[in-house]
């Protein structure tokens, strides 16, 4: 192979060229370029996460409901901790036991010896002031600022929800989240997480061996600034919400108020409630544990998740269905002899004049009348099944037994049985209008959330339709209805003309019927009381109302658990809320006083008087 001998020089040349290129590059990197020539004392890089401030939340009048306060995470870099680290002094500073220090140090070491991890999280600004002065004595520790939620009005806890640390499960599912990130876990915070969270940033700092930041790495070439979350304006009236919570103190139950013309939620109250500030920062898990063990279930959002039968308030709906189906006219009279007898059984009623027409039936809440109405709706068709399906269709058109579509997580759909349910229960073809007669007076299997009931009232107030209820009004300056296509007008299928009679009757209920405790001078309030049979204890007091009669501005449903008659608790509370919202004054301080003092959590105080419904 002599002929290729010269090629050894080519190969040698290749070797030399690479060697020389390396030496030139090394000379450049090590001697000439100051870019890499960082001083030995400050070439330790540290990435500081810039947590964005979450968006602020306001009520419809611009009152601040939720804002942020600074808090500090103490970070540790295990490898940077010196031999002569004074553990005792450090533990005193942080007010933690020495054993705890050891545990956390080992945990951090396990995570990484040279990457920072959280040693103590969410230190308040006040505690931090003390720590800050001493921190430079402890190389290996530094602080990362972040924000925590604060709730100045201490109200609407269930609705606003709370923020927590992203769990490993969430981190695995959503690439955005990293360990230590905050995420909305319930309520508005969860529903509008994407809007509120903003965008995380980072800063790469150079830090010397004494733990002092020495400026930005490469002039901040790798830094990104945090982008704050967008602000959110809610449809809630904070004053109304707070007043409702106050009236409901020491009671269990729920209030939902809606502006019927827009579907905007004005108040969403679930009692008992809690101070949202309890579920913030270091105390969260401790407080959460306490709250979740409370037998009164303060964490349970009754407004969206509790199912109550509607009781007598539902009679208005049966009247409307009867009218639309043309099996009922306003002048139709039915007699009531202390109830309604059928097949040897009897559905009882309270004593009142008889016979009654439509208007009076609502006013006096006559059970017998609605047994007749319900039977004529169902029996109008050849089979009970067919009639029931027609009836059920109207009921769901009022937004009952299905999710209303409110922009909050965990809404339940309530319950209106399907025919299959009765087929299973009573054998197909063997059940009749009388079998399911309790539906006539809003009892039986029906279960609606307070949210659904309030929504149903808006459909009555609007004479035939409701707008999808919603709680966000403006996101970053844009009205939600501009871009949220799920907010629509929903028709009930009952024509407007049939509402007049029922609305008039509901007006009479407040003027001179069972709901006079909701009456407000020179304000036309329409309402309907209800007593919800409760197999577990005292009956629930309920009231639905809207006002004014023409061009209604507020519609609401009130449930007071174990409050007996609707007229006793629910109606007066509804009246006070309507007055507060529409007039901003309270003209009946005696009633207000009685509501504020009422305590239904212990024993029910005996109050004499008040006719039944």
């Amino acid at each position, binding site marked *: *192979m002599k*002929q*290729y*001998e010269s*090629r*050894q020089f*080519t*190969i*040698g040349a*290749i*070797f*030399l060229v*690479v*060697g020389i*290129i*390396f*030496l030139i*590059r*090394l*000379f450049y*990197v*090590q*001697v000439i*370029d100051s*870019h*890499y*020539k*960082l*001083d*030995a*004392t400050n*070439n*330790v*890089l540290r*990435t500081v996460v810039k947590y964005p401030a979450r968006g602020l939340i306001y009520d419809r009048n611009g009152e601040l409901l939720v804002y942020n306060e600074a808090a500090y995470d103490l970070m540790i870099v295990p*490898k*940077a901790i010196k*031999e002569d680290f004074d553990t005792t002094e450090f533990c005193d500073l942080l007010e933690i036991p020495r054993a705890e220090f050891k545990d956390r140090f080992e945990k951090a070491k396990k995570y990484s*010896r*040279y990457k920072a991890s959280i040693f103590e999280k969410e230190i308040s600004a006040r505690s931090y002031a003390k720590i800050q002065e001493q921190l430079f004595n402890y190389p290996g520790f530094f602080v990362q600022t972040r924000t925590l939620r604060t709730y100045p009005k201490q109200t609407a806890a269930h609705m606003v929800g709370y923020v927590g640390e992203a769990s490993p499960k969430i981190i695995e599912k959503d690439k955005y989240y990293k360990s230590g990130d905050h995420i909305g876990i319930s309520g508005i915070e969860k529903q509008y997480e994407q809007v509120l969270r903003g965008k995380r940033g980072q800063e*790469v700092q150079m830090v010397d*061996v004494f733990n002092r930041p020495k400026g930005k790495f490469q002039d901040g*070439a*790798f830094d990104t600034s945090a982008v704050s979350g967008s602000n959110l304006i809610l449809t809630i009236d904070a004053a109304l919400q707070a007043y409702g919570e106050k009236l409901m103190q020491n009671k269990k139950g729920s209030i939902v108020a809606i502006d019927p013309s827009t579907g905007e939620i004005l108040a969403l109250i679930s009692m008992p409630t809690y101070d949202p500030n309890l579920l913030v920062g270091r105390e969260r898990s401790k407080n959460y544990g306490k709250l979740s063990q409370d037998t009164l279930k303060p964490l349970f959002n009754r407004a969206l998740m509790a199912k109550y039968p509607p009781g007598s308030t539902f009679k208005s709906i049966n009247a409307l269905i009867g009218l639309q189906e043309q099996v009922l006219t306003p002048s139709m009279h039915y007699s009531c002899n202390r109830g309604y007898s059928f097949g040897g059984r009897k559905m009882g009623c309270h004593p009142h004049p008889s016979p009654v027409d439509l208007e009076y039936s609502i006013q006096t809440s006559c059970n017998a009348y609605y047994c007749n109405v319900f039977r004529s709706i169902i029996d109008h068709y050849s089979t009970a099944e067919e009639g029931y399906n027609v009836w059920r269709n109207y009921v769901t058109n009022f937004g009952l037994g299905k999710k209303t579509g409110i922009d909050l997580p965990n809404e339940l759909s309530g319950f209106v049985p399907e025919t299959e349910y009765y087929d299973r229960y009573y054998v197909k073809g063997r059940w009749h209008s009388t079998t399911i007669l309790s539906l006539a007076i809003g009892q039986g299997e029906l279960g609606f959330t307070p949210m659904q009931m309030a929504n149903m009232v808006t459909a009555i107030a609007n004479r035939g339709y409701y707008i999808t209820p919603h709680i966000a009004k403006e996101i970053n300056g844009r009205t939600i209805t501009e871009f949220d296509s799920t907010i629509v007008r929903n028709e009930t299928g009952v024509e407007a003309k049939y509402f007049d009679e029922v609305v008039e009757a509901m007006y009479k209920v407040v003027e001179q019927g069972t709901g006079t405790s909701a009456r407000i001078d020179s304000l036309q309030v329409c309402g309907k009381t209800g007593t919800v049979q409760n197999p577990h204890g005292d009956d629930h007091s309920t009231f639905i109302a809207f006002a004014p009669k023409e061009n209604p501005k507020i519609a609401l449903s009130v449930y007071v658990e174990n409050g007996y008659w609707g007229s006793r608790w629910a109606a007066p509370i509804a009246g006070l809320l309507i007055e507060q919202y529409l007039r901003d004054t309270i003209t009946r301080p005696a009633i207000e006083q009685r509501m504020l003092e009422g305590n239904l959590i212990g024993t029910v105080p005996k109050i004499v008087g008040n006719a039944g419904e």
Partner: protein
Amino acid sequence: MRGSKSLIDNIDWMTVGLYLILILAGWLNIYAAVYNEQFESIFDTTQRYGKQLLWIGTAGVIATVILLIDERFFSTFGYLIYGVIILLLVAVLLVGAATKGATSWFEIGGFKIQPSEFSKFATNLALSKYLSTLNIRMKELKTKLTAAAIIGLPAILILLQNDTGSALVYGAFILVLFREGLSGNFLLIGLVTAFLFVITLIFQNDVYQLPFEMELSGGWMLIILLFIIIGLVYYFNRKKKQILLFSAVIFIACSGLVKSVDYVFNNILEPHQSKRINVMLGIEPDPYGAGYNVNQSLIAIGSGGFTGKGYLKGTQTKYDFVPEQSTDFIFCTIGEEWGFIGSFVVVGLFMTLLLRILFLCSRQRSAFARIYGYGVAAIFFFHFMINIGMTIGLAPVIGIPLPFFSYGGSSLWAFTILLFVLIKMDADRLEVL
């Protein structure tokens, strides 16, 4: 065998000396890289430096044994050794232990053995034996294909182990083939392909604005440039025979390459590999992802300055900022603690060793020994080029060790065997007829 005196006389002590210096320097640097106040003794065998000393000791035994074996052993059993190693490479795929995504280790007792390190030696033996057969002509297609098969088989098996870095090393044998008569065009094509690949990656995402509101992607822009360049070359050589066909073929091949870069990049390379290449080319700055190692490595080396921070005083080293400090990124420790002077000495030592090996090759009488020697040089060179290249940002991050410096028993043994078989053959060169 002749007496040991003649063996001692005939050994190339300069190569052995270089070997000893490199190994000693390597050991001291591993000590610096994993230096830990808790285990100060350099002989502590619970630490890497202590273990490396064990590896060095055993490597010495292996080197001595090799020097005592008859050199004909290696040429005689070349194919057999190759066959055994191929079997081991297959076996490791079936029963091997996985480390960092690669299944390339046998675990025996507490020790791990990596057959892919030894297969370089075996492949070199087999290739040398084949190419030194009488009447072999590199020009023949059959020769090329057989040589390619000998080199390719272990490379593919190692690729299957998911150890791309070690597989790439086999590309170094192209230098051996070149020395033995492979057309220089192959080297040229390799270079041009690599060059076009890189250029395309850099420019393909650019968009050029042309008159009349036309836009042109970087890929097409390159093809137009190629057309102009090849067209010009054709124009000045148009008198030559077949130049038109030749130019056309070149143009089509180059254009095809440019257009296929995207496909290769996105579909053939693994995402982390594409990412490393992008980071190296500066297309994607990413100091905390794929670029983290290189960036930290550059800071470590760069902060060494001209004279370095002093032995055991490297802060980057101390704070573990460069991962794989004692293995793939061992050169950082040298750069940081010994500065440019240290880097210069190490690069110089490697250059001297490589050129010395070329010198040894040139004085071999047997083709087998000569080809084997070039194989050794090519393998050392490739490791040297890629390993140091990646620590200073000139090569993509491919995890292959720096000979004699990186921590690891298998690689130290394998490099020792490679080198001492050559030293042995060189010592016995005068006996070859």
